């Protein structure tokens, strides 16, 4: 009983101790409100989405007259194809981009060659220049190469990603040299070392680099607008933009499209985020 009496004052002060946690939960909930509002809007008839814009109440995030009509109408049009295009473009970018980035990072991390520092500096510089700044002249070049309205034209700029190379190089540098030397003694070639030692050890970094490549392509707006505007090659974000006409907008459909385009990367990121954190920790960025 004495112990119980001794513990009770501590319990009384526990809310104060948990205040940061409570604050974090409240702030987290506040951050989800706009997302819930978009989700609720996507389940409302188009003309009612913005009707209660300024009076925030529980009805703002809970649709009382929920309907899936917006989603049905959306996928009866060209939006489904645009989402599929986005998935294809992002998947190819991740696969091919990872292969290129990993081999480039391996070269930079393992081989000691003349000009290595200069090459690495160029790679660092490449991801510090905003892509939009070079998109317009690059689009003219792609057009001259007849790459407009092709998947290749959409995918190519996303493949050579300096940040992905940087992330992987930093991770590869941490692989013990003894492992490489032992493998060399056992007769393993450089390709074998890359494939059998570096790649299996670098799974978190590969996932992080893959996510970098994926988000670059998934969020891309300016580039597909310049190079892939034909309906058959349109990507999700552009299809979302074209749901709004010059005169009339169906916000229900716009919100439904926004939900679809958010849920796909959300699922990918949530599924893989723990590897991403590990990789950032291991890359020396944190």
């Amino acid at each position, binding site marked *: 009983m004495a112990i119980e009496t001794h513990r009770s004052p501590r319990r009384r002060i526990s809310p104060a101790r948990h205040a940061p946690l409570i604050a974090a939960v409240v702030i987290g909930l506040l951050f989800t409100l706009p997302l819930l509002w978009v989700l609720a809007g996507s389940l409302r008839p188009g*003309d*009612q*989405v*913005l*009707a*209660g*814009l*300024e009076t925030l109440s529980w009805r703002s995030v809970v649709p009382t007259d929920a309907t899936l009509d917006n989603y049905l109408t959306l996928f009866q*049009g*060209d939006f489904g194809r645009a989402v599929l295009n986005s998935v*294809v473009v992002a*998947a*190819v970018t991740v*696969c091919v981009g990872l292969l290129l980035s990993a081999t480039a990072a391996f070269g930079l991390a393992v081989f000691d060659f003349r000009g290595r520092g200069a090459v690495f500096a160029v790679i660092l510089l490449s991801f510090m220049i905003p892509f939009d700044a070079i998109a*317009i002249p690059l*689009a*003219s070049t792609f*057009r001259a190469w*007849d*790459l*407009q*309205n*092709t*998947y*290749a*034209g*959409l*995918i190519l700029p996303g493949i050579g990603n300096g940040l992905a190379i940087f992330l992987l190089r930093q991770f590869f540098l941490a692989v013990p040299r003894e492992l490489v030397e032992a493998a060399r003694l056992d007769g393993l070639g450089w390709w074998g070392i890359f494939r059998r030692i570096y790649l299996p050890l670098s799974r978190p970094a590969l996932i992080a680099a893959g996510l970098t490549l994926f988000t670059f392509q998934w969020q891309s707006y300016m580039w597909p*607008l*310049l190079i892939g*505007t*034909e*309906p058959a*090659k349109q990507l999700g974000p*552009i299809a979302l*933009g*074209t*749901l*709004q*006409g*010059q*005169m*009339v*907008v169906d*916000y229900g459909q716009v919100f439904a499209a926004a939900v679809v385009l958010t849920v796909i990367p959300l699922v990918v990121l949530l599924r893989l985020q723990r590897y991403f954190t590990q990789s950032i920790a291991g890359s020396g960025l944190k």
Partner: protein
Amino acid sequence: MTGLLSRRRLLGTALAAASGAALAGCADDRPAGGRTAVRFLGPETADTFRPVIRGFERAHPDLRVEYTPVPPAQLNDVLQLRLSANDTAIDVYCVDQPRVPALTARGFLTDLRAVDRRTRAAVSQEQYGISTWENVLRCLPVWTSTQYLFYNADLLKKAGVTAPGADPADRWSWEHILQIGRRTMERSGADYALLIEQTDAYYGIQPLAESLGGGSGITGDDMLTPAVTTHGWIAAMTWYGKLFADGLSPRGVSSFEMASLFTAGRAPFFVGGPWNLGAFASLKAFSWGTAPQPKFAQGRAVTPTDSWSWGINPYSNRADAALRFMEYASLTTEGSLATIAASPLIPSHRGAFDRYAADLDRNATRSTQGVAAIMRHELAETAVSRPRSIGYTQFETVMGSAFSDIRNGSPAEARLAKASAELVRTWERLR
């Protein structure tokens, strides 16, 4: 192990499929079924142009149309980039009518003198004029426009107020609108008195300044001298700023959201375009009416007009097919009516216009009674086009920022002076 293998197999299959798709995408886009494709680019949804494309393809079995929608906010940038790169993959594109001089000056519009006589005969005089620059026809007009005053009949009834009439001779003044709007707010619980659909757009604001004799805002022989600090402009913009400062109209609500606020019963009055007629009519529980756009008590009645024409890319290698498509949409009654089948805009074609007006009369409900008469009157008597200048693009951008700032509290006179100075600097490069 099985899981790993299946995952690997899945990845491999996805990569192979995606690579195949990528390679397939590299193949050229030859016209399907031997039909030549007219590549058409515009800011509307695909649904808007579906009827006219179907009608054209039925009438011309050897041709087909590939429509590429571009988000409206990016249309001008995309056109600028692609046309300046001599892009041959656009044949026909939508031309915002006040931009005809600028597009012509940049060499982005094909000379259409070959169909000048037919165009002059087919479309209204005002629409013919707006599609020319330096006496040369540069594009074919498709739509024109006007604005109406829409009112919420239930709110006015609740406030015990008589609704405005449809006769242009009994046009209400802006001052009267605000007085009745305030009363309706007090008695019916409406949040606002008046909603203006095109808040930050020159199209929606020009009539305010013109009504008070402020002019278009551009003057000079070369139409590259700003005139936005006239008494009329300052008075109109001061009124406009006060509208929001007094809480009679909402700040922070974009143009596209205004109609939703109106149909939700948040304000008794809404000034907007003819495209709202169809959207409002589809709302069964919404009781509304139409009246002429107001004017200032001491000013003259002015309404906005102009809309979209279609032009041919000079670098197109399918110019003949492109012209046939444009002729169908602009110079034939059937084609012109098809352009408004999905979105109730006003056709530029004379025959189609008469049919459109007759349909409005024939199908008039209590809400749309007198709309055709208002439209005819406004287009003939009160419509004022946007200024014709090669600097209009920059003018629209600079003035859009000024309207937004004034709406959010900037003093009108100082902000207009700043816009004027900005325009002088910007237009110096165009002289």
